[in-house]
């Protein structure tokens, strides 16, 4: 029978690295998806995944075992992702190098890639990049990860009302930015 996160975390807190390994193997893929949605860059997402687990290991002693390990880990990963995005913006402002936010991964063309090629992709990337940190996080968690607003607020560590408003603002900004594009595509 597969052990629950809670049972594995109890072992990991005692320094059992095999238990922590089980958590890493279980949560890496969803964490990568979240990190990619947040950073828009494969290499950054890889770094975020690794850094999140390193932080989680260091912070395990403070983890409240009554809480959900997945939610806690998502919170760490969103903070790591925001660090990466902020740091990249600072570097980009300094060196005037193009910000790779939401640059698509290389590979063969797929129907989605073709549909999202060119101007549309660029405009969506720009619109996403205009969102503030809480808006971007709340939107990614609600829209891409399918979390209920109640759960989004737990990850963000805020009241559900605040999480809801971050989602509203994100969608409103995206709609205003992309309206000319989507109305033209009707």
């Amino acid at each position, binding site marked *: 029978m597969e052990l629950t996160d809670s049972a594995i975390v109890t072992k990991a807190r005692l*320094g059992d*690295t095999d238990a*922590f*390994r089980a958590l*890493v*193997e*279980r*949560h*890496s893929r969803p964490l990568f*998806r979240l990190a*990619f949605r947040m950073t828009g860059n*494969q290499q950054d997402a890889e770094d975020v*995944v*690794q*850094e999140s*687990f*390193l*932080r989680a*290991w*260091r*912070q*395990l*002693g*403070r983890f409240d075992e009554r809480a959900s390990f997945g939610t806690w880990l998502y919170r760490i990963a969103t*903070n*790591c992702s925001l*660090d990466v995005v902020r*740091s990249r913006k*600072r*570097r980009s402002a*300094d*060196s005037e190098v193009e910000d790779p936010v*939401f640059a698509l*991964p290389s590979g063969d063309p*797929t129907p*989605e890639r073709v*549909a*999202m090629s060119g101007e549309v*992709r660029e405009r*969506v990337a720009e619109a*996403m990049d205009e969102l503030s940190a809480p808006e971007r996080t709340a939107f990614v968690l*609600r*829209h*891409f990860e399918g979390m*209920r*607003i109640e759960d989004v607020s737990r990850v963000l*560590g805020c009241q559900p009302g605040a999480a*809801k408003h971050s*989602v*509203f603002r994100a*969608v*409103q900004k*995206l*709609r205003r930015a*992309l*309206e000319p594009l*989507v*109305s033209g*595509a*009707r």
Partner: protein
Amino acid sequence: MNHLSEEQLILHYYGEEDDGVAAERHLGECEACRALYGSVQRTLNVVDSLPVPERDAEYGERVWKRIEHRLPARRGVRWVWALPAPWRWAAAGAAFAALLAAAFLAGRSYPRQPAQLAADPQAGERILLVAVGDYLERSQMVLIELANARAPGALDISSEQERAMDLVSENRLYRQTAGHTGDAAVASVLDELERVLLDITHAPSRLSPGELEKLRQRLEAEGILFKIRVLGSNVRNQEGQTL
């Protein structure tokens, strides 16, 4: 029924509204709301189609191999927090003192150390200086808040701990950059700072008034924050000279 607001339509899209049936009925009757809802749907459908690269089933195993050797020994941190509170603060004070001594020396020697960059030394040095200056400022803010905190009972420092945790992660990047550019003194300060921040993140999330007061008095007596400010100022000055 009044028109649906954009917020209500967004909640409807995500199925989180209070009365979905009423919203659906209104959309069936109201062309204006239907048009607005269509716009929300089209926007989110476009955003939704951004592709995400897939990772195979062995991905978790590969992540583990990459981080396994980097996991710090947790026992090394635990012993500090197993100490009685006064000793714990003595240990924290010693860590602060070591940090400040290193920071002060780095601040004096930093301007005399040329950065070793291959391509564009001046631009590289400036980027590092901007990053380190900004980082020191934010680290200083966390320490100031802890030093100036007042509370009638136990003080919740979990927010400062969160920020310290973020700073630890950022620290790694700057420390590595400093190492690559040959700024050993800055790298050393950042290394020391990381340890202090780590100790803060591993502290209990609630401090008693006594523990807080001891920390405040120590920071004041040793002029720690002033010295950090001097280092930050040196870095900023140096940054100005590279422009």
